[in-house]
């Protein structure tokens, strides 16, 4: 089964112009600097800086999803589980044990990884849409469990993290510090995906996405590669959930498990930006999150749900006409221009 994510143009590039790791990292660092510009411009505008912090965070989370969903072609819709585990772990460690969130993200990542392996071991037998439906069902199971296990999650009322500003608490009075934090996290995720994409694991994941049976025949341990990919993805998602917890400071099950807001959103952001590309999630999030907020303020105020009507149409159109996302379309155009000038 193939997806439309195949960044063929990217692969061609690599063949015609051998790139060293350093120049590659430099290229993506340059692109990330571009993403940093709005933070500098708007650092004093609390409304937009808030949205920007969200956008960076969701760029990172979509990037994490992209590792297994984009490179590996495994369409998980259950990443809300890892996100929630990360959020609850950081909150519990911080509130009950007094561990600083900066360190609590590590157990959060570890627990998310354990959950990912436990969930994925059986479900990786399923392919394509069946995997997506199963992971979606698991998300709903965990939603119900989070409502039920009141001692861990605070049940339907949720957990409230008191506002105590301070660097060691990862709670800041100034919004731009949050934006800086989520920007840093996004950079880490992009760096990891750059390294991963070039590694043996990255190539294996791509091979599995293109043809699972052929990969197995070629000697790839398919289950192991998928599990490792999922583990990396879940660990990063868990850390993102932890940062989210310290940012919103109110954690209830609907905030963490609602499919269109969390689990499916990671995938939709990747779709808009470009599934299976490195910068796709960043582009997608920096576009979708501000646009959604802008529309919510303008149309959403007039017509309830108006902004989501527009977004729904955008998603339908993107799946019909922009299957490789913005980055995919851009590289394709670039590729065409280059071919014309150098036949």
């Amino acid at each position, binding site marked *: *089964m193939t997806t439309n994510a195949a960044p063929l143009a990217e692969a061609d590039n690599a063949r015609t112009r051998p790139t060293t790791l350093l120049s590659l990292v430099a290229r993506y660092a340059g692109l990330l600097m571009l993403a940093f510009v709005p933070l500098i411009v708007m650092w004093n505008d609390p409304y937009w800086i808030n949205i920007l912090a969200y956008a960076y965070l969701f760029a990172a989370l979509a990037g994490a999803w992209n590792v297994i969903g984009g490179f590996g072609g495994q369409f998980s819709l259950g990443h809300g589980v890892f996100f929630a585990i990360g959020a609850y772990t950081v909150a519990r460690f911080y509130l009950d044990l007094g561990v600083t969130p900066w360190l609590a993200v590590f157990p959060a990542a570890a627990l998310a990884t354990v959950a990912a392996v436990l969930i994925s071991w059986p479900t990786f037998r399923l392919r*394509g849409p069946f995997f997506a439906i199963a992971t979606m*069902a698991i998300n709903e199971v965990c939603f119900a469990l989070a*409502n039920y296990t009141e001692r861990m999650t605070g049940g339907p009322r949720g957990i409230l993290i008191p506002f105590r500003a301070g660097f060691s608490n990862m709670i800041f009075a100034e919004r731009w510090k949050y934006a800086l934090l989520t920007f840093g996290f996004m950079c880490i995720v992009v760096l990891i995906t750059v390294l991963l994409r070039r590694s043996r694991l990255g190539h294996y994941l791509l091979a599995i996405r293109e043809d699972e049976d052929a990969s197995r025949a070629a000697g790839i341990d398919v289950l192991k590669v998928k599990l490792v990919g999922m583990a990396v993805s879940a660990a990063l998602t868990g850390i993102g959930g932890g940062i989210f917890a310290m940012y919103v400071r109110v954690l209830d099950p609907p905030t963490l498990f609602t499919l269109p807001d969390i689990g499916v959103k990671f995938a939709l952001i990747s779709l808009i930006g470009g599934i299976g590309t490195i910068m796709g999630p960043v582009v997608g999030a920096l576009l979708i999150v501000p646009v959604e907020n802008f529309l919510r303020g303008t149309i959403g105020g007039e017509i309830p749900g108006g902004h989501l009507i527009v977004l729904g149409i955008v998603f339908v159109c993107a*799946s019909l006409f922009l299957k490789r996302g913005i980055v995919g379309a851009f590289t394709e155009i670039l590729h065409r221009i280059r071919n014309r000038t150098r036949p």
Partner: protein
Amino acid sequence: METFFNILISGILLGGIYSLVSIGLNLIFGVVRIVNFAQGEIVMLAMYATYFCTTYLGINPYIALFLVAPLMFLFGAAVQRIVLQPLQNEPMMQIFATFGLLILFENSVLALTRGEAHSLSGAYSSMVISLFGLKASGVRIVVFLAATGIAFALMFFLQNTMPGKAIRAVIQDRQSARLMGINVERTYLLTFGLGTALAGVAGALLTPIYTLSPYIGGNFILAAFAVVVLGGLGSVPGAYFGGLIVGLIESFSGYYVDPALKQAIWFIIFVAVLVVRPSGLMGQVGAEEVGLREQS
């Protein structure tokens, strides 16, 4: 003992609702192989259409059904032609597209109704039939009977008519079906329309039971997918009995385990069945794979 039988009956009647909602999705997912996450919203749209007919045109909801179902057939056919036909062999893009449709339908209704809840329930749901100390709601019995009737009618249609045979041929092997002179695209259009029309029937019959809200589709969609996968893709009896099984599990675990966990329990059972036997309880082994391979 009386409690047990009351739970049994409420489970069967709940199962009737799940069966009714799932039979349409079973055609769409099992035959056309479209991962239609918007199916619950189709039911929701049909509920609002029925509500509109009853409140503003004064038509009885059980008669409005015969207006709503053909309307949903046309609507479904249009959606299939415009959005889903181009994505026939791309299950991932179908997930995105139908999720987009889900968000679109849900919020369009929210915008039109301005978030007010509507309900027909008062007049109809008060009717309760009791027999030997067992109680059952009349409107739910109607749903159960309708689900049973539709399951039989659909089986007859698939077994004995030419379009039905064409649908079965496409389930088995769409490439060979095409070689035998079946117009596969037209079969898809017909089947998808039929699937949404059945969702329309479900919506009309459920209008007297539920309080209408734009988000009500979410209650049905995962249940419907669970039922379809549990029962077996493309199998009508599978969807029917799968619905009953899910209803019974939900009802019994709600009483004997914990009402907060009733959905979690049948989701876990669903995932377990999916992993152990992906073809479902009554599906052909391998049927879950064939249609999803690239065939054109």
